[in-house]
């Protein structure tokens, strides 16, 4: 044979490429083009806003997945860091009026510092114990948000003036080649570009030395120590990185929504993040994104179609056994349950299965 087989890898460098095979290169290109073009095709503000929130959540979920999926530390306190990031953005981007790169990075730094303070708890606590201690963060955080009025605006919340501006470019009112783009379109590009960047950074992290160490700590922390991985350092490191990313998500959330209040950072938000990374698949970056879109967009989809179900009341106090709104919630819960019964490894599990199937092809066994 004159031509090397398409799967033949000739150097380690080649082997280490993220998008090595022609197929995955094509996949990448397709994804990028989709992200670029989508907002000009789907101009509907509803779907754009759903996708913007999903993108923000995807960023936060990547952070949580690094901590929980990769390093094995369960945290129910994610919402706390998200909130902290939003308030940081309100101060730096809003009150001080600094541009996007600054408020985004300062938020990340605030998240990192808070994560660094909380991180040492992981050294002593395991599994669910850690989960519940981090749950305490939510309540302690809520107390802080309600009482640190100067920063958070107290119960009222605070408006977030952090603008999506980079130098002369204002993504909130983009004008390109004589064409005007809406705030939602601009935010879509901003948020999803950040999703791509953060996903890439996270992917790099997990495929190199520190990422392997995180997973080693998750699988067997004692053995990891014995072969030279300082488990404690990585646990704290994971907390720092994860909270920094969470804070960035919070900053984006605040900037898009323009107003945040203590009611935004509840336990339910943390639980939603847990749901996302489990549904998406623990320990996969791509899964975090899939999970965020799934959990973020599924209710919207259900919403579109459930009113067609007979026996359902479509307005408050209408006739029917169950209101369409309650039904949406129930369907959402039910889908999650069914989905995990079918595929406990999450969306990423389906993906691996498909891949495994095609690898084995044409031998079905």
């Amino acid at each position, binding site marked *: 044979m004159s031509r090397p087989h398409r799967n033949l890898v000739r150097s380690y460098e080649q082997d280490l490429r993220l998008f090595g095979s022609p197929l995955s290169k094509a996949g990448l290109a397709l994804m990028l083009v989709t992200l670029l073009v989508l907002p000009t095709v789907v101009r509907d503000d509803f779907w754009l806003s759903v996708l913007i929130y999903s993108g923000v959540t995807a960023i936060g979920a990547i952070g949580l997945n690094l901590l929980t999926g990769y390093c094995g530390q369960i945290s129910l306190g994610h919402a706390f860091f998200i909130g902290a990031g939003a308030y940081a953005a309100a101060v730096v981007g809003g009150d001080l009026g600094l541009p996007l790169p600054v408020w985004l990075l300062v938020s990340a730094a605030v998240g990192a510092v808070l994560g660094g303070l909380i991180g040492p*708890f992981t050294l*002593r*606590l*395991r*599994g*669910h*114990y850690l*989960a*519940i*201690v981090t*749950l*305490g963060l939510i*309540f*302690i955080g809520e*107390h802080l948000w*309600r*009482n640190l009025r100067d920063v958070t605006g107290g119960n009222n919340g605070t408006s977030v003036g952090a603008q999506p501006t980079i130098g002369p470019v204002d993504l909130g009112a983009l004008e390109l080649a004589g064409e005007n783009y809406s705030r939602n379109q601009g935010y879509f590009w901003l948020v999803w570009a950040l999703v791509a960047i953060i996903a890439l950074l996270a992917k790099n992290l997990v495929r190199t030395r520190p990422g392997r160490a995180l997973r080693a700590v998750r699988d067997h922390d*004692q*053995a990891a120590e*014995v072969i030279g991985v300082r488990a404690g350092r990585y646990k704290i490191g994971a907390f720092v990185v994860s909270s920094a990313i969470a804070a960035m998500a919070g900053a984006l959330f605040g900037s898009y929504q323009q107003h945040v209040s203590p009611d935004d950072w509840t*336990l339910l938000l943390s*639980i939603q993040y*847990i*749901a996302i990374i*489990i*549904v998406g698949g*623990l320990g996969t970056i791509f899964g975090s994104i899939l999970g965020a879109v799934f959990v973020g967009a599924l209710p919207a989809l259900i919403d579109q179609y459930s009113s067609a179900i007979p026996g359902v009341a479509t307005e408050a106090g209408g006739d029917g*056994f*169950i*209101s369409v*709104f*309650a*039904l*949406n*919630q*129930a369907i*959402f*819960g*039910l*889908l*999650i*349950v069914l989905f*995990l*019964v079918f595929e*406990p*490894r*999450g969306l990423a599990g389906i993906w691996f299965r498909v891949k495994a199937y095609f690898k084995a092809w044409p031998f079905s066994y």
Partner: protein
Amino acid sequence: MTTFLTNVFAGLALGSTYALVALGFVVIYKSTGVINFAQGGLLALGAYLGYTFADNLAIAFGFAILLACAAAALVGASVERLVLRRMVGQPPFAVIMITIGLLFVIEPLITAIWGFDNLPLTNPWNIRTVEAGGLVFGVRDLWTIGITAAVVVAFFLFFRYTRMGLAMRATAFDPEAALAQGISARRVYATSWAIAAALAALAGITLAAGPGGLSPSISFIALAAFPAMILGGLDSPAGAVLGGVIIGLAEALTRGYQDQLFSWAGANVSLIVPYLLMIVILLIRPYGLLGTKDVRRI
């Protein structure tokens, strides 16, 4: 002094409720190794079932409680039947998520059936009081404490005289190895879900029998019981009771002395005191007061 005793009593009553809820968490943790996020949903469901029996069907309150517990247990066991039996040997995370999913399902179903309005649960306790030694005790509070004590005793007898406790721990630790010993994971799961749901119903009804009546937000109490469960040790029924009482007392006493001692820290410090206490205790004892340590040697 009376204020102090009143606060202590309030703490005990609150702690008993926490203990009941925490016991429900512990039972499920003991057999599946996961925290059951649906516990609050089960609690609300149990309370509403109690309402239906006591008010819609006009069954005597005591029987209504028993019926509600039985009905809730049935619901719990069906959860196993429909969902959990398929999850033997699957990653615990998937099971956690399923409990979250269940929570999302239960709540809208409750509102679909019983609506959103606050429902008064007819009951003989309510705001009645008895007086003893210069102190006034709420009848419902006394009953809550009494019921909790009875449940705790029943619990220990159950685990003492059946092999369920051991089977639960074995199943949680290694479901496959437990199966190999002839322990039916299905039976274990079904039993623990049934017990947890019945406990939740009991807690729900004692709560709803107060002046606040019954509304879907009753499920929030489950969150408040987290610190109690973890403080005592996730897999220890005795720990759940101990944790419940400690947290209840801590909360009630900080609340009682908020003005004198804690006004500098902002309003409602009492609500985060359980968490702070929990964190401090866990730093000293990472597995709670009575929890089992993870064992892994190389």
